[in-house]
Each structure stands twice: as C-alpha cells, then as structure tokens.
C-alpha cells in the first residue's frame, strides 16, 4: 500500500513539475488539438552544384491572420548548403464559410560542395492570444543530394533575342532600300499612274443613260437631275444629294463657284424639279435642253481638269 502511495505522489510530482517548467519558459510543444500546422518542402531532391534549390516552409491555420502571433522564426540550420535569398508571403482565403490563413517562408539554397546537403528542423515559436500561451513547431530533417555541375547553356538560351535582332536589322535594311528606290524613281521622273478625270466617267454614263430614240419622259428628268447632283457632290464635295435645289444653289453661291456653273445647275434642276413634282410629262425639247446643259457642264469641267493636269505635269518636269 505504501508503495502505491509513493508511486502516486511520484507521478503527481512529475506532472506538477513539468507544468511548472512550461509556465516558466512560456513555451509549449504544439497542443494535440491545435489548428495550426507547419510543413516544409523542397522543389527537388537532387541539385547540381551550380544550381539552387527552393525550400518552402508553410504555416497554416484556421482563422484570421491575427489568430496566432509568430513570436520567433529562426532560419533553418543547414549542412553543406547556404541561404542566398529569402521571402515571405501571407494569404487568406474563405472556404465553405471558414477563414484560413497561410504564411509561407521561402529560402533559396545553394549547395557548397558535392555530396549530401541537409536542412535541419525549422523551429517556429508562436503565441495563442486566446490562451496567452506560447507554443513551438518543429519540422523534420530534409536531405538532398548535390550532384556534378551542369554546363551553362548560353547559346541555347539567347536564340529568341538573336532572331529578334536579326529581324530588326532586316527591316531597317528593307526600309532603307525602299527609300533609295523611291528617291531614284523620283529623280528619273518615273510616270505616276494617271487617274482619268471623273468627268469622263460621268459623260460616258450620261450617254448610256438617255435613249433619244425611245425617251422616257417620266423618269429621264429625274435621272438627269440625279446624275448632275451626284457629279457636283463628287467633284466639289457639295451636299447635293441631301439638299433641295434652292439650298444647293445657295451653297454654291456662298462658295463663290463659277457663275456659269451655278446658272446652268439652276436651270437643269429647276426644269427637272418642275417636271418631277408637278406630275406632268416633260417634252422631248425640254429633255434635250437639260441633257445638253448637263453635257456642256461635264465637257467644260473635263477641259478644265485636263488643262489643270497638263499644267501640273509641266510644273513637275520643270522642278
């Protein structure tokens, strides 16, 4: 019985003594039901001597970022490896209505010599504000093999840049050549393709439009009027299609266009309007009269256009 009582007190002392030790240091190992987890991983298990390896330690827990407070995070203890870069990142996401926080610590490691390299355990100390206690998390040792260095592939890596440079040079040479050819052709006075005056087209379609052997005294006046309006719109950029005769004549007068052209236009459109809108049939004489006027306008403008063209040619040759 005494033995049993003694054993009981020894167990009690051991338990109470452990609790006392934890309180004094304020650091516990992770509680069994804790929601915070630490994991580590490396992106390869073998690394050439002239390359690096990425070690990532991830700390995840359920709750907001301030659910736990990271008290201490020590760089990992390394064997045959050295740290050449570090970074940290935080991420919070909501899944099924629950908030999860993830904190990553990344280390870029470089091997020192051939053989084996080791990442000793990473120790993280954190505090739980809810219980105001500190805990620690420890990872397991990770090993990786350091292999012979690989050759540096300079040429292969720069192929796209080389092709880009080559393309730019070709384009520049092409543009320069085009400029030289253009300059040469200008100097030697190569003929530029001549566009025939629009009057020729309008005169041709005018002749095809009216058949004086079988005149259509109802519609021919409308066609002639439209033909003249289309010509004026194309030649002089007048709003001849969408304005009435009075408005068109006013615009022509405002632009101080040739008086003869204005009076002939007024005559043609005036006669055509009267026949179009009074519903009466025009006479053959009226049709011949306004046909002649339209033809005269086009022929006169054609002569002027040709004269202007030849004058431009002459000036070009002179220069």
């Amino acid at each position: 019985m005494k033995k049993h009582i003694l054993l009981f007190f020894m167990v009690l002392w051991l338990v109470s003594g452990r609790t006392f030790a934890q309180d004094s240091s304020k650091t516990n190992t992770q509680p069994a039901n804790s929601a915070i987890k630490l994991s580590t991983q490396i992106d390869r298990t073998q690394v050439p001597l002239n390359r690096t390896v990425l070690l990532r330690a991830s700390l995840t827990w359920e709750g907001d970022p301030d659910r736990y407070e990271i008290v201490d995070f020590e760089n990992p203890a390394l064997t045959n490896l050295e740290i050449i870069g570090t970074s940290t990142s935080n991420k919070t996401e909501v899944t099924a209505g629950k908030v999860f926080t993830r904190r990553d610590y990344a280390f870029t490691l470089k091997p020192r010599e051939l053989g084996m390299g080791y990442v000793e355990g990473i120790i993280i100390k954190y505090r739980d504000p809810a219980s105001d206690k500190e805990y620690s998390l420890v990872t397991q040792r990770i090993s990786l093999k350091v292999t012979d260095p690989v050759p540096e592939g300079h040429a292969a890596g720069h192929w796209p840049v080389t092709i880009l440079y080559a393309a730019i040079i070709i384009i520049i040479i092409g543009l320069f050549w085009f400029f030289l050819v253009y300059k040469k052709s200008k100097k030697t006075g190569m003929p530029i393709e001549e566009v025939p005056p629009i009057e020729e087209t309008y005169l041709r379609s005018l002749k095809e439009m009216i058949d004086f052997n079988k005149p259509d005294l109802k519609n021919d006046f409308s066609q002639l009027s439209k033909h003249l309006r289309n010509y004026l719109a194309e030649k002089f950029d007048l709003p001849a299609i969408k304005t009435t005769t009075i408005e068109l004549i006013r615009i022509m007068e405002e632009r101080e266009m040739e008086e003869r052209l204005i009076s002939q236009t007024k005559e043609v459109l005036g006669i055509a309007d009267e026949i179009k809108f009074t519903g009466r049939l025009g006479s053959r004489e009226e049709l011949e009269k306004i046909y002649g006027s339209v033809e005269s306008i086009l022929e006169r403008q054609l002569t002027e256009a040709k004269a202007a063209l030849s004058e431009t040619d002459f000036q070009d040759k002179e220069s």
Partner: protein
Amino acid sequence: MEQDMQAIHEKIQKESIFVDSLFSEISKVIIGQTYMIERLMIGLLSNGHVLLEGVPGLAKTMAVKTLSSAIQTKFQRIQFTPDLLPADLLGTQIYERKDGKFTVKKGPIFANLILADEINRSPAKVQSALLEAMMERQVTIGETTFPLDDPFLVLATQNPIEQEGTYPLPEAQVDRFMLKLNIGYPSKEEELEIMRMNTKGALPVVQPVLKPETIKKARAVVSEIYIDEKIERYIVDIVFATRNPEDYNLPDLKPLIAYGGSPRASIYLAQASKAHAFLRRRGYVTPEDVRAIGMDVLRHRVIVTYEAEAEEISAEDVVRKVLNNIEVP
C-alpha cells in the same frame, strides 16, 4: 395633268390675294417675326392648331391678337391660370329660377380663334378639356353636344423658362398641335424699329381684311394642291427615319430617340407642306416645302432618351440631322 395644274394655279392666284394684305396688316404692328406669322397662316390654312414657345416679350400674344384683328372672326383670349376649371373654358349649365330649368352658358371656347395664353399654367384637367375639344371639334355640356365654330383654331403659348407652378403638356397632348414654333429674338434692326414704334405712342390699328369664308375657300384650294408620290415617299422616309434611324444610315441616332414621329406627323407634314406651297403661290409641293416646315411639325413629336438629354442633345438636333441626311427626291 397639265390642265389640272393650270386650274390649280389659277385658283391659287385667285384665293391667295388675301395673303399679301394680311401680311401687310400684321406687319403694321408686328415687326419681323415673319417665320412666326407665316406658320400661323399655315395653321390657319391647313386647319391645324399651333403651339408657340418662347421667352416672354417676343410678341407671341401680340402676334395672335393682331392676326385675329385682321380676320373678321370671333376671337377669345383665355389666360390659363392654376385655378381655371374646365367649366370656365367649355361652359356650364345654369339653373333659371323663373322657368325652373337649366340653360346652357357656353364658355369662351365657342369662338373661331382661341388664344390659350400660357397653357402650361393650368392643371391637367383644363388642358385635357381644351385638347379634347381641339381634336373632336365639339363640346358636350350636360347631355347636349355642341359643335364648335368653323374655322376653329387654337393658338397656344407657353413659356419654356419658368418651371415652377407650371404643368408641362404631356407628349400625347402636345402631339395634337400641328406645329410647335420656337420663337426667337428679333434682329438688331428689327428691335430698333420695335423700340421706336412702341415709344411713339398708340400702336397702329389693324383693319380686318379676311373673312371666315375666304379662309374656308383657301383651305379647299390648299387641299387640291398636287403632291407627287416622290414627295409623299420623302415625307414618309423622314418620319420613318425618326423611328428607325439605322435603316437610313443614321445608326448613331438610334440610342438618342425614345419615340419617333407618329403617323399623325406624316399627315400633318403633308398638309403643312401644301399650305406652305400655297403661300408660295405654287400648285404643287416641292422638297423645299417639306424641309421648310419639317422642323415645326416634328420637334414636339420626337422624344429623346435620357442618354440624349445627358449629352445635351435635343429633339431639334435629332430632327435636324434626319432632315439633313435623308436623300431629297
């Protein structure tokens, strides 16, 4: 056709003699404003009511009063106020104690020419009573229906700048006016003349030069004026372009127009174009007539969207673009 045209031409020459004398009588008192007077004449000749909109002091009321003085007709001016009742306008039944019967007391609407001054100052029920009479051309008091006089023409004015205490006419009711005129300011020279005339003393007296029978005869001639199918199609194209602008190569107007012109717009545009041709002593309608009157017929029939209002694009801008882009026959 040629003989018909000759006959119409002769009728026009005969029946339009009054036009010059009417213009000269009105111009004794109204300086400038040819646009407004011409449109009032068009309303008179085509039996269409006219709504005049403009800031105060532009002689809107004066022009209508002068026109009525120049015509030997029964004229009534009704000042629209917030407390006006439909019965004040149309008339009512009065109990005669002697006979023990109700007798009808006709309202001021029983006249040939009505000036509805500041029409937007009265509430909707009064506006509605007037506008119904305008369309039906008859009034029912008690159980008796009375036809209105012929000619019967309503010339209404409204002021666009005062919004407080006004009742803007609904679109459906504005549509009953054939023309809506926007009255602008006179030119510098005209204003100088107006100032001189009004500071001299009494204004000249306008003599009546036109009888209701003359107006009826002139209206008959207006209705005979020839309108070619090309012009009719042109009118329909204009009105359709306010409804489906994308079909007329005006796709940018589509988001700006909430409602286009109604068939009433086509009817009124054709009628008003004929009256315009009559004033030019022409027996047929030309595209000039349509374009001259198009804005006045359409500006109150095209309803723009909020998007257009936000971009400060008015119905007038839309109509102007339509008129300037439809191919003229």
